[in-house]
Structure formats: C-alpha cells, structure tokens
C-alpha cells in the first residue's frame, strides 16, 4: 500500500490556478440556486411550526385554512404515510419533516400549506388551529441526563440506562488505569461547547412537482441529490427511477444539506395539489428547523511522564443529538486522540437526546468539540511540565505505523510535518504586545470515498463532457476538469464538467466528508482511461495496425515501433473527428465505490488580543497548516482552509444557540447569531503540505473539513496566554471572558 510510485508524478494541469468554469455565471447573477427556479402554475408553500419545545398535538383543525380562496393543499402528518412499523431511520426523517403526535422542539413543523402566492399561504397558516398540550422539556445536554428529565423519545429508551442516552461509542487501546498510574503529571478538566449552525448563506429551497401518474421532479439545493431522491421516494411511496432530482447551484452546505428537511413535504403538497410547489425556508426556519451541530459537555484527562511522554489519556464527551438519534458521539470518540500516539487511551462519545432540532453534520462533524477539550488539556499539561506546547505535541505525535485509536494503522500521514511547519513558521516569532497571546492546536479528519458514478463523453470536435454526480460547492468543476484534462493529455479549456441529475447517472453518495474531488476525481481518471482505450482502438483502425502497437502520450495516439515510423501521431481531436466511421461515439464510464480516502491533519497558529475591559477577543494573526495530499487547484484548497478556519473562529468566539427557560430558541437570526464578518478577521495565512495519499492515483486527500477542528483549542490556548485565564466553555464570548477574568481576580 505504501507504494512510492505516486510520488514524483509530473503534472501538466494539476496544481495550476485555472479559472473556474462557473465563475462568469456566478459574478453576473446568472447562476441558479435553490430559490431561483420557477415552474408554470407554481404554488408557494409555507410551513406552520410548533411554538413549543415539547408538546402533545391533540388536534389540528385545517378546515378554515382549506376553505380560504387560493389555498390548494394543506398537509399534516395525517396525510403522510405512517411508518411506525418500518425502518427507524426513515420514520425519524419523516417525523422530523412533520411532527406526528408530539412536537419535539421549537420550530418542529406541524402543517404545510400550498397556495397561489405567499400572502395567501401566510393567511392560511393563521387559520390553522392546533391544540397543544405542553409537556416538560429539556434543552441542555447535562440536564437531559438528570433523573427527572423528560424522556424525549421513549421508543429509543433502553432498560438499565437513562432514557435520553442513546448509545456510547468507545475507542482506544491499552490499559488506561495502569497508564495513569505510571504518569508523573495528570491534568483532568471539564469543558463545554455551544451548539452552532453551519450558517450557509443560502436557505433551504426547492421546487417540487409530482403528477398523478406517479412521476415527479425536484429541483433542490442539496449536497446529495441521489440520497434526497432515495429518501423522498421511499417516504412518499414513489418509484426511485420516477423521481428526478436536480441539484441547483448550492449556496453553501457544510454538512447541513446532506439531509432532507422540508423537501418531502413540498413533494407531498405538490402531489395533493397536482401543481408545482416552491418552498423556501426563512432564515429563522433554517436556524430552528434544519440541522445544526451538537452542543457538548466533556471530561478530558491526560497523564505524562516528566520528560513529556504521554502515557495515558481518557476522554468522555456527551453529544447533544437534538430530538433524533445520530452517530455524533461515535465520531467524536474516534477522532479525540487521533493526532497522537498514546499507548493507553480511551475515548467515549455519548449520544444524548434533547428538545432541540435534529443535529446534522457540520464540517468534520464532532471532531472540533473533542479537539477543544484535548488541545486545551495538552496545553495545560505543557505548562505543568514546563515543556513548550509544540514540542510536547511533537514528542507524542502520531506517525506512519502508529495505530489510530479506532483501529487502523496509519500510512504516510501529515500531522508531524504540519507541527514542524508550525514550529518553523515566521508567525511563531511575531512580537506580541500587552493582553496578546499565541495559541497552537491540532486537528484530524478522516475523509471518505463512497459510491461514485461518472460519465465522460468525447464530442465530434474532441472537446469533452464529464458528467459527475457529486455537487460543486466551491470549485469542484474546475478541479474535475483539470483531472480529466490531465489524464487525457488535453487542455483544461477542452473539458466541460456537468453535474448530472439523478436520471442521468447511477447512484452517487452525498457530497460529504470531503469526498467530492477525491472520489469523482478518481472516477474521472478511470473513465478517462477507459476512453483512452477506445481512442487507441480507433487510432489502430484509422492506421490499420494492431491496437497493441498504439500508445497514448500527451493527448495523442502514437504508433509504436520502427515499422510504423511513417505514421504521424493522431491527436484526440483527429480521432474524435473520425469517430462516426470508426465505430461511433467515444466515451468512458466509471462506477465504483471509491476506497482509499486519505486522512488529513492540520495544525493552526493564532494570535489574539483580549480587551480586559470588554472581554472582546480580536484575532490578530492566523495561520493554517494542513496536509492536503496533492492539491489540484491551490486557490480552492487555500479557500477551504481559510473558510474552515473562519467558521472555527466564529464557533470559538461568538456563535451559539441560546435557549430560554421556555425551551425556545432566542437567537434565530444573523443579528443575534453572529457569524464572523470581514472586519472581525485578519488575513488568514495558509500553508499547504502535500503528503500524497497512496490510496489515490494522484495522491489526493480530502481538504474541506480538517481545518475547522483546531481553531477552538488554538484560540482557547491563545486567550489563556494573553490574559492568564483558562476558558472551559466555548464560545469564549465577551461575557464569559469577563466572568473568568473576574473570578481569577485579574
């Protein structure tokens, strides 16, 4: 597996900074996102949502709403299939789209309306009468495990453990008790992190159209149009092949658009009304009723020898899953100590239910929270040991051959090189002033491959269409065109990449886990290689020589051997032109489960200044060092690093869902849920390391997620170095910092 062949490849197109193909559409306003599509006769749909955190729905009276002129369909759970006996995952998905017997969180949908226009739909919502019986609620992850906490989902409760505790994922090696017994210094601390939202600027939006013959179309902003298709078809009892889902341009997703929310309801309304239905969430609905990330609460304990050798580590973290179970704790348990080589380690991720919206993935889901606790604890350990924090990390760093806490043995990995790059970076020598401090932290993310299907078609003039089923959330079409061009030996401009709808390609897994460029890139390479085989056959026919004598080089077929020295090379264009008379269209196709995704690591440096008067933290300098594997398009790799760091900065300093005593979300808008703006941030410096992934022909790893992992810990460490108080809760908002300063008597 550790075949060094992939190193030293020479690329012509890969690694250059070409212009993205969708750039002009996006700077002229021509690109169509979720809300930018209309259909003849379309209706506008709106959702009525629960104002209660937890309530029994005793009765819904829709009769007045239905009678309002202009209203074409009203839907409640009674109109939807009852999946109680079926697959639990599908049941949850449908119940989350529309509450059945109980509203489980503030904003849970209880009825949907489709009307001729928005104002009619709004009036209709007011005419729906819902009789609720309020139930006790709980929104804090620790409170949810108290004895007197209401049980959110009795059907998930297990005998012998708290009814809101879904399951635990436990990972690690060695004997931690013995490890801690050997330690000279042990640091044990508790931490909490707030719930954040992906904060994509484009709200969820779709245009659904179902006809009485059982066929349907869905135009939707999504990271996974195939999985939306499969889910919606199953929920509504449609044939998968008859529901065509087209992914619009997507205005950000970060994991939040991997899951259906109101789309099944839009389809159901369209079916009932027999008219196309457009449904767009308001920002408030996005916050309340799409899928934010988990809030957490954890204990971290790390023990080391005097010389800095970490001998034992334990983490236990409770992940608030919202009202429906997920696997978030499990992912947290797997990532907790992945950056280090610790002989005795145990990490436990616990999944807990609360009256909050169903949690969805958010960029490297579950990793940033554990990393906050682990990286903060390592920093405190370094202080107790009197060892430089970067050196302490380097001393215990995971390397090729280290066994990951969740089992596999690492191949060539980049954590040590990123830490060395941090140590040697000029940023580490920048001067710091009063109330300023520097922090460093590391992060890990798996990256994934998955099911992928791509089509490559060569036109009569030799230009190429590559159709892929992963979506383009930030330059993927450019990267994929570069890969196809590289493989075929033609120019980037000669390749046009399209995102296929669900009827044009086989199943493609959702574009998540940084898999887009990795797996569609892999499929593009193999599809191109198959097309090259065809091109060689055609050239052989044109020359009337055996195909074995044809080789492919620099975008041309060449006849091998002295006897053919009179034959001058045939370019791809030459062969394409003659395709009609040599056997018809030339294409390559590839479908497979892309395996071999390469893990990725990052180390970040941050300088902050904390104002002791206001508690406000300003980011002064920020440097991201991440292993990208081979960087296809460096601009977009840097952009991913910067964007991920900015999201992490927001999480660390400001962003947080705030629930009132009534269990209702108090800051469901960008005014009060404040994401970083341009003037909050400095320029974010990046350094791309390219440690090739042996599992990919070009050495590609995923790049999108890892850099959201380190910022929380890095900033916590920097704040501590700036003003001498250790922050145990994220976000480190001004009131929290002031309180900590006050308590420390600073």
């Amino acid at each position, binding site marked *: 597996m550790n075949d060094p062949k992939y190193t030293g490849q020479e690329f012509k197109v890969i690694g250059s900074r070409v212009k993205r193909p969708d750039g002009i559409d996006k700077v002229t306003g021509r690109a169509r996102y979720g809300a930018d599509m209309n259909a003849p006769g379309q209706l506008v749909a709106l959702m009525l949502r629960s104002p209660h955190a937890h309530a029994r729905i005793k009765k819904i009276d829709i009769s007045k709403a239905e009678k309002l002129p202009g209203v074409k369909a009203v839907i409640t759970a009674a109109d939807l299939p009852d999946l109680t006996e079926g697959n639990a995952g599908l049941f949850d998905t449908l119940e989350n789209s529309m509450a059945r017997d109980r509203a489980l969180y503030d904003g849970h949908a209880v009825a949907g309306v489709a009307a001729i226009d928005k104002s009619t739909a709004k009036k209709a919502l007011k005419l729906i009468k819902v009789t609720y019986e309020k139930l006790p609620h709980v929104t804090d992850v620790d409170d949810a495990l108290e004895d007197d906490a209401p049980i959110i989902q009795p059907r998930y409760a297990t005998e012998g453990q708290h009814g809101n505790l879904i399951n635990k994922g436990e990972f690690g090696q060695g004997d931690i008790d013995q490890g801690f017994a050997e330690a000279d210094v042990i640091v044990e601390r508790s931490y909490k992190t707030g719930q954040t939202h992906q*904060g994509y600027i484009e709200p969820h939006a779709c245009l659904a159209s179902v006809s009485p013959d059982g066929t349907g179309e869905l135009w939707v902003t999504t990271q996974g149009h195939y999985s939306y298709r499969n889910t919606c078809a199953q929920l509504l009892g449609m044939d998968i092949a008859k529901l065509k889902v087209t992914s619009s341009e997507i205005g950000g997703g970060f994991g939040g658009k991997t899951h259906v929310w109101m789309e099944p309801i839009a389809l159901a309304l369209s079916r009932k009304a027999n008219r196309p239905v457009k449904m767009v969430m308001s920002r408030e609905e996005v916050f309340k009723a799409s899928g934010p990330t988990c809030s957490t609460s954890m204990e971290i304990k790390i023990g080391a020898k005097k010389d800095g050798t970490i001998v034992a580590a334990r983490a236990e973290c409770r992940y608030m899953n919202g009202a429906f179970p997920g696997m978030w704790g499990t992912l947290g348990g797997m990532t907790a100590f992945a950056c280090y080589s610790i002989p005795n380690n145990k990490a436990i991720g616990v999944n807990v239910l609360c009256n909050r919206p169903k949690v969805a993935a958010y960029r490297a889901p579950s990793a940033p929270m554990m990393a906050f606790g682990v990286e903060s604890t390592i920093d405190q350990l370094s202080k107790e040991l009197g060892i430089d924090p970067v050196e302490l990390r380097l001393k215990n760093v995971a390397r090729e051959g280290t066994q990951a806490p969740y089992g596999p043995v690492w191949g060539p990995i980049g954590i040590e090189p990123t830490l060395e790059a941090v140590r040697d970076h000029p940023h580490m020598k920048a001067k710091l002033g009063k109330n300023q401090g520097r922090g460093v932290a590391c992060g890990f993310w798996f990256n994934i491959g998955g099911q992928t299907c791509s089509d490559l078609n060569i036109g009569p003039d030799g230009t190429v269409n590559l159709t892929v089923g992963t979506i383009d959330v930030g330059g993927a079409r450019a990267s994929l065109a570069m890969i196809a061009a590289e493989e075929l030996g033609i120019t980037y401009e000669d390749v046009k990449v399209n995102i296929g709808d669900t009827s044009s390609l086989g199943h493609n897994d959702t574009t998540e886990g940084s898999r887009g460029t990795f797996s569609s890139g892999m499929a593009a390479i193999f599809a191109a290689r198959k097309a090259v085989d065809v091109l060689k056959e055609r050239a052989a026919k044109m020359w009337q020589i055996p195909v074995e004598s044809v080789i492919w080089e620099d975008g041309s077929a060449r006849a091998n051997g002295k006897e053919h020295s009179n034959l001058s090379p045939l370019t791809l264009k030459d062969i394409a032109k003659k395709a009609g008379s040599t056997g018809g269209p030339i294409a390559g196709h590839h479908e497979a489960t892309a395996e071999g995704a390469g893990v990725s690591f990052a180390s970040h440096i941050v300088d902050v200044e904390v104002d002791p008067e206001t508690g406000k933290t300003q980011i002064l300098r920020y440097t991201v060092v991440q292993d990208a594997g081979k960087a296809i398009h460096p601009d977009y790799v840097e952009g991913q690093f910067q964007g991920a760091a900015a999201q992490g900065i927001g999480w660390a300093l400001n962003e947080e869902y705030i629930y009132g005593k009534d269990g209702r979300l108090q800051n469901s808008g960008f005014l009060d849920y404040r994401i970083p703006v341009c003037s909050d*941030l400095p320029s974010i410096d990046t350094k791309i390391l390219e440690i090739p992934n042996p599992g990919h022909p070009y050495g590609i790893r995923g790049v999108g997620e890892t850099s959201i992992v380190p910022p929380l810990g890095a900033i916590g460490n920097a704040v501590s170095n700036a003003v001498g108080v250790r922050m145990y809760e994220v976000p480190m908002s001004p009131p929290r910092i002031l309180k900590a300063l006050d308590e420390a008597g600073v």
Partner: protein
Amino acid sequence: MAGVHVTTTINSDPVEYVCPADESLMDVLRDRLGLMGVKEGCGTGDCGACSITLDGQLVCSCLVLGAEAEGRAITTVEGMADGQNLHPLQEQFINNAALQCGICTPGFLIAAKALLDENSDPTETEIRYALAGNLCRCTGYDKIVKAVQAAAKDLRK
C-alpha cells in the same frame, strides 16, 4: 391589497411594475422582474446578499419596499458588466477565487463597487469595514479582500 404602480429605472432601463404596498423591493426584483442575481439570505437586513444600489446608495433590497423605488435608479449585479466586458471587480473575483459557493458574490460585488465609487484606493481596513455588512460563510473573506484590492488597482489605471 391594492397594487401600487411604480415607474423606475433598473440597470439604466426604464421599468414599470405593480406590486402590493407591503412587498419588499427584493421580492419585486426577484419574483416579478426575474432579477435573480439579487439573493435572499435572511430577509432582515443582516446578510447583504440582496444588496443593490438605489440612486447610487448601497442598500439591502429586503429592507426597501417595492413602492419606494418610484422615480429612483436601481443597480443590481445584472447591470455590472458592460456588454461582453466584465467589470474589473467581477474579473478579479474570478481571478482571485474570491467565491466558493457564490451565493454571497452578487452582494459583495455591489457593495465593493459602492466602496470603490467613493474611494478609489481604500486600505485593507477600509475594505474590511465597508464589506462588514455582507456575510460570506465559505471564504473567510481573505480572497474577497484581495480581489477588491486588485480591482481597485485595475480601476485606477
């Protein structure tokens, strides 16, 4: 609700429309006039995706009523390019990879143009504050700032 009749100028073209008195200019531009380059990120004036200029003034079109456009001059992203020639800001946003998903891009372009119309040589800090009303969740703003600096330089030539 009775409609209001509005006569206005959009991207230098004369336009007339009828809209309910309480309809936002954003909805008018998007849903009645098909100018979908005006994006909706929040509808409450917090994200800047719906930015346009009204008589040269940068505004969030979600906070302006359609009826208020009477007799005014509106510019949207659709009016930025001059025929086949992109505006230097548009050009530099592409060159500098200043967009990832691109949903925020029209708003940033309009806001950046409003800044450069006033100040042809802004500092980085001035750029960052001038664009602070526009949210971008993808880029971390770095490449957006660089694109605006590059465009400002082009425009000064």
